[in-house]
């Protein structure tokens, strides 16, 4: 199986890298390097690209915001050699729009690094901590004849130790821990009978991994599940015993590009950079044939025909992604009535019209249609994956809309589901009930917009929505979604301060800090957790003022006066804590121009900035006695 198979092949990667190195303009140069990171590359080319990128980023550190790249610090602690994997992790990060600073802990000394305060690691201040351990350390001390109970006991002991390490990572470094699962490296001893011998190396590692997964779920640790992902590749593809004996490399150098992407996509997901919407072509993508030529009854879908069955299976996979919370959209060059007819009339369609949040079939170019879909769904194009069997369409969309992910597709539709999964576009760092509702929420938004388009009376429309805002402090159950929003909201975000889940947990635990989240319901449905506000007393502004550190909101609920209702809650809460005023801060970024007048609109008055603040931030003061602006939202406060 080929690594990075979803990335297109560059006709002349080496030449393009050489050309990129000569580009004088730093921004243009970085954007070329990011582009190259999204082509298929072997480990040598990946290392070359990394060398150039590392040099360039260290010489021009202020480039990131211009290209809207995110930054993160990753420490790798391991019991085997990982240095050869780090360039591939960084380049995959770049491809997923994150520049990663990396720190590799001293070989084998992961326990010391975590349990004693390690000055290098403290200075590095990792936000992500990848713990990559070797199954050999865990399987060597158990007798082959050990009973089921003894094996369980040994595993509990190992897991307890891991928990201590994870907590150290979280508490000492406020890092999000990522635990790599164990790779079974020993061949079978008994053959299939291994599974019936509790302490056989294979059975033991499998039990250990299951226990790691459950414990990680409890502890808020993310998994780099090489054992799971590796099934598709085979242990031989990932590791090479020769490289183990030569250099203690658990993952062989040639596999670095794929491994690096596995790591980078988890970090990107934690930063909220995973894709949210899957846009599909129709003809020869979700069914065989051309509905306009072959008619609804003539397309190949199901009906015992091998090709038709394969398309059916792809639809099932897409539908499952929809149920997971990925928004589904159609973008097809077709007559709209014919395209719709296939959905309503073909008896075997697994995808139903109601699964599709935005349905665009016409003869316009696909780039324009993708823009239209983004508009309709209120999503950024950088959250889109576009799947089309036609290489020419893929090429044009990549050129016109480089922020849209456009995977290469295998020749055989039977391999579409697997290869879409391999691409890792929808990697998750959390899964909450809000995610499940999301697909429905996107459709509800389209319905709301339709009502809004017909309405001339804005006030009537808002009243008619029967909105309820449910305010609460951020509870453990809210933490994953709140952290998701903190990390991915760009537009309605006053300060764009990012906090990992572990960092947010610290803020929530601090009694001085007011950490609120908000849910919105209306007559079309539940929008889920849509807004987060963090506020705290701040020395500079005096003890009677609360500084609003973070105020962000999902763009799904823009223009519904949620801000006014949230301010009402915030003012009440701050007043209960003895505050007399609120201080708002606006830190402009290339993407949050939308909220530049947020505080002015809510009745805040301009305030002078603290001396040590950069010139670009503006500050605003709100007297808590002032009535907040009018809104049509019922407010519920959960205690």
């Amino acid at each position, binding site marked *: 199986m080929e690594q990075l198979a979803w990335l297109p092949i560059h006709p002349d990667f080496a030449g393009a890298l050489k050309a990129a190195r000569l580009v004088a303009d730093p921004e243009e140069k970085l954007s070329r390097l990011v582009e190259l990171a999204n082509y298929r590359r072997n480990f040598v080319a990946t290392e*070359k690209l990394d060398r150039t990128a590392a040099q360039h980023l260290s010489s021009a550190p202020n480039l990131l915001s211009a290209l809207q790249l995110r930054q993160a610090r990753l420490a790798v602690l391991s019991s085997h050699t990982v240095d050869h994997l780090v360039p591939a992790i960084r380049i995959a990060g770049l491809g997923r729009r994150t520049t990663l600073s990396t720190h590799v802990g001293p070989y084998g000394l992961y326990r010391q690094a975590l349990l004693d305060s390690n000055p290098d690691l403290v200075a590095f201040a990792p936000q992500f901590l990848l713990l990559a351990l070797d199954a050999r350390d865990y399987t060597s001390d158990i007798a082959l004849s050990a009973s089921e109970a003894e094996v369980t006991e040994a595993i509990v002991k190992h897991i307890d130790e891991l928990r201590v390490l994870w907590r150290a990572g979280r508490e000492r470094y406020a890092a999000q821990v990522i635990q790599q699962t164990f790779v079974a490296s020993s061949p079978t001893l008994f053959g299939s009978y291994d599974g019936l011998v509790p302490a056989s190396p294979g059975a033991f590692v499998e039990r250990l991994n299951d226990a790691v997964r459950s414990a990680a779920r409890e502890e808020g640790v993310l998994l780099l599940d090489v054992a799971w992902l590796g099934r598709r590749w085979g242990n031989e593809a990932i590791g090479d015993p020769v490289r183990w004996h030569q*250099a203690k490399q658990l993952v062989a150098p040639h596999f670095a590009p794929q491994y690096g992407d596995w790591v980078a996509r988890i970090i990107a997901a934690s930063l909220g950079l995973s894709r949210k919407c899957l846009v599909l072509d129709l003809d020869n993508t979700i069914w065989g044939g051309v509905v306009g030529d072959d008619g609804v009854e003539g397309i190949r879908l199901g009906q015992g025909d091998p090709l038709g069955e394969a398309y059916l299976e792809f639809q099932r996979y897409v539908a499952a992604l929809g149920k997971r919370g990925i928004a589904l959209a159609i973008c097809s060059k077709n007559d709209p009535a014919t395209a719709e007819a296939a959905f309503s009339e073909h008896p075997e369609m697994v995808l139903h019209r109601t699964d599709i949040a935005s349905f665009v079939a016409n003869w316009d170019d696909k780039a324009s249609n993708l823009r239209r879909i983004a508009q309709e769904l209120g999503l950024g194009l950088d959250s889109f994956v576009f799947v089309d069997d036609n290489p020419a369409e893929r090429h044009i969309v990549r050129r016109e809309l480089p922020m849209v992910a456009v995977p290469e597709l295998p020749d055989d539709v039977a391999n579409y589901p697997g290869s879409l999964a391999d691409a890792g576009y929808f990697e998750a760092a959390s899964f909450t009930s809000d995610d499940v509702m999301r697909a429905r929420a996107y459709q509800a938004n389209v319905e709301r917009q339709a009502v809004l388009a017909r309405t001339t009376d804005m006030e009537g429309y808002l009243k008619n929505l029967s909105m309820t805002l449910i305010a609460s402090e951020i509870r453990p159950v809210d933490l994953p979604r709140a952290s998701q929003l903190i990390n991915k909201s760009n537009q309605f975000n006053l300060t764009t301060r990012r906090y990992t889940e572990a960092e947010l947990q610290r803020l929530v635990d601090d009694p001085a800090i007011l950490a609120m989240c908000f849910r919105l319901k209306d007559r079309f449905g539940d929008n889920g957790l849509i807004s987060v506000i963090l506020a705290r007393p701040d020395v500079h502004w005096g003890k009677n003022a609360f500084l609003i550190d973070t105020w962000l909101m999902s763009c799904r609920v823009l223009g519904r006066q949620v801000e006014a209702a949230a301010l009402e809650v915030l003012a009440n809460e701050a007043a209960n804590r003895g505050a007399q005023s609120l201080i708002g801060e606006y830190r402009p970024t290339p993407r949050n121009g939308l909220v530049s007048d947020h505080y002015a609109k809510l009745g805040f008055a301009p305030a002078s900035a603290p001396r040590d603040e950069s010139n670009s931030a503006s500050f605003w003061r709100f007297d808590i006695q002032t009535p907040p602006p009018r809104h049509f939202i019922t407010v519920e406060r959960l205690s």
Partner: protein
Amino acid sequence: MTEQEIFSELSSVFHDVFDDETITLRPETTADDIDGWDSQAHVTLVVATEMHFGIRFRTAELESLRNVGDFVQLIQSRLVDSKAAGKDGG
């Protein structure tokens, strides 16, 4: 493949791995002569060479890869092996 051809192809592998096209290889070139040829780069070099020529070195041979001449010799014998295997239909 002649020794000369192997030499020239191996040069391009070195250029790639060390990201330096000015490297000129001679049979007696060792790690001391090339900037960055440390133990990690050595593994990279071995794997990149294997991929480039479509061959595998054996664990027993790894320690004998001390200079460029060793590489060339071993590549040549591996290529002969695989050709022979091809003739046998293996």
